[in-house]
């Protein structure tokens, strides 16, 4: 137990900093010792092998990037025989992200990865690239509830459900996931966008549309974290545009008990290390004994300047 220890439902993590799915592989061990992370969250995979989308698969944006990688996958076998053994060497909870196109496929895959060495399943029901026009299970409360219920029946592992910002009903979706048995919510996946190269008049991504990540989406993810934390009783893992200590603190204060870091690792592969050190120093400097003491401590403002009580016509 240290200041940084945090809990996600029944799981205890050494610290609240972990990578976001799809932005992390064993290759990061080229840069630092992956044993220091709070959890290892792997790239989403599907039961069947898939190639992924045509290139270009990424592009630059203002304060962010866009990707349409398209979930290339080496399939279940490769996962069980190659990937899983590699990660067993670390004493860090392994979170396996899965995706599928139907309830049954999803449930089957969840059951298949419920094996020793896997600490939790993250269900990616929000990836905007797989479904036509960016639609995914996570867009609606009913489809979310259905798929989560199937997943719940298929596994006893902690079930994290990763939601999408591409919805008009984030609170209902979060509540549907809770009602159907999710153990935690990850808020959130990428935001659907598009960019065009004016010279060639072609979309900048081979898949035409893609998912925006990075600082540009931080306020959206923070809003969803706050919405989920205040409207469900589930632990919430914040994700979206986190790159500085200040970002981590914002998500914790909004109600997250841990955070995932994605795009920032592309800009600086040591970002998670810096956030870990920075958070520890920040807590220590303020004499705060535990991360838990700041989670969800957002203070709603009293209506700050005195506002007129009635509603007279406004001065111009």
């Amino acid at each position, binding site marked *: 137990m240290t200041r940084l220890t945090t809990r996600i439902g029944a799981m205890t993590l050494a610290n609240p900093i972990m990578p976001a799915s799809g932005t992390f592989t064993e*290759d990061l061990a080229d*840069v630092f010792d992956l044993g220091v992370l709070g959890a290892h969250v792997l790239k989403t995979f599907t039961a069947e092998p898939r190639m992924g989308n045509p*290139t270009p698969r990424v592009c630059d944006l203002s304060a962010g990037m866009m990707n349409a*990688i398209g979930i290339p996958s080496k399939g279940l076998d490769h996962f069980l025989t190659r990937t899983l053994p590699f990660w067993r060497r670390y004493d860090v909870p392994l979170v396996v992200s899965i995706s599928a196109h139907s309830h049954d496929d999803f449930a089957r895959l969840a059951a298949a990865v419920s094996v020793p060495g896997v600490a939790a399943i993250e269900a990616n029901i929000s990836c905007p690239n797989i479904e036509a026009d960016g639609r995914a299970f996570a867009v609606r409360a009913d489809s979310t509830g259905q798929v989560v219920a199937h997943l719940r029946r298929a596994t006893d592992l902690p079930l994290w459900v990763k939601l999408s910002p591409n919805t008009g009903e984030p609170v209902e979706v979060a509540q549907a996931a809770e009602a159907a048995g999710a153990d935690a919510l990850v808020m959130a996946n990428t935001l659907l966008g598009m960019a065009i190269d004016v010279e060639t008049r072609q979309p900048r991504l081979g898949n035409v549309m893609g998912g925006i990540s990075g600082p540009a989406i931080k306020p959206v993810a923070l809003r969803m974290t706050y919405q989920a934390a205040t409207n469900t009783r589930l632990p919430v893992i914040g994700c979206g545009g986190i790159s500085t200590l200040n970002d981590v603190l914002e998500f914790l204060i909004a109600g997250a008990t841990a955070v995932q870091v994605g795009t920032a690792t592309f800009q600086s592969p040591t970002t998670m290390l810096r956030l870990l050190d920075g958070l520890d120093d920040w807590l220590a400097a303020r004499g705060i004994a535990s991360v838990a003491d700041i989670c969800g401590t957002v203070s709603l403002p009293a209506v700050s300047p005195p506002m007129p009580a009635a509603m007279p016509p406004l001065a111009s």
Partner: protein
Amino acid sequence: MTVCLDRPEPFVPRCAEATGVVRENTAVNGDYRLLVLDAPAQVLDCRPGQFFQLLCPVTGEDQPFLRRPMSIYDYDAAAGELRFLYKVTGAGTRGLASLRPGDGLNVLGPLGQGFSMPDDWQNLMLVARGVGLATLAPLARTAHGLGRRLTAICSARAPELAMSVDLFRSYGAEVIVVTDTDGSSHPEAVRSLIEARIESGAVDAFYTCGSYRLARMLQDLGAKHGIPGEIAVEQQMACGLGMCQACVRPFREGAGTVHRRVCREGPVFPLSELIA
């Protein structure tokens, strides 16, 4: 091809993020600029063909977000020096062009797999176009150090844009400049040039970078004459480390086709496996 699932313990970083200090950043000719950095030892254990990911500076006009991949043009661990040769094309390279001596630049590297040079590759044929010359320059230096015989075909739009000719010559290379202006750079013309040398037995291997048209021609020659080769390729990147799968390209493997990551399995690949 699973490069890294079995990693030796204890932990030894293979690349690092470091701040280089600009020593020089000057125009080489109309299109290209040379960037010379003072760089720390931890990023200077390089191989020819590897690259860095540069965090290009944000200027008033441009906010490049992702790092930009850039081949190592030269590295010198003893002198603590790292060089890049770049063409100003967009937000990132415009940012690079704004750097002044004394400015810092965040670099991540060295990354990727460099060129190989088996003992039986004694007579080397380098074929480069445009900025591909940057990528082949450190290879030429290494080959020279190993006493290999070099022929370098430098292709450019016009004679004044053919870079590094003197550099290649200083490595003992026979340099042939071919240009669009006189038509000598056409793949068929270059093919004839090379075939002449193959006939005289002076080509054990090809190294190429910068033109897929030339690469296809070399694949063809290689298949015909049983000459192996390597090519350094480019692809849009995000992480540069192998994590994001942005940079895949299709390659022939056995009877099938596989995706490989340019940043991780590459940027250097066996010429014969390229699909381009």
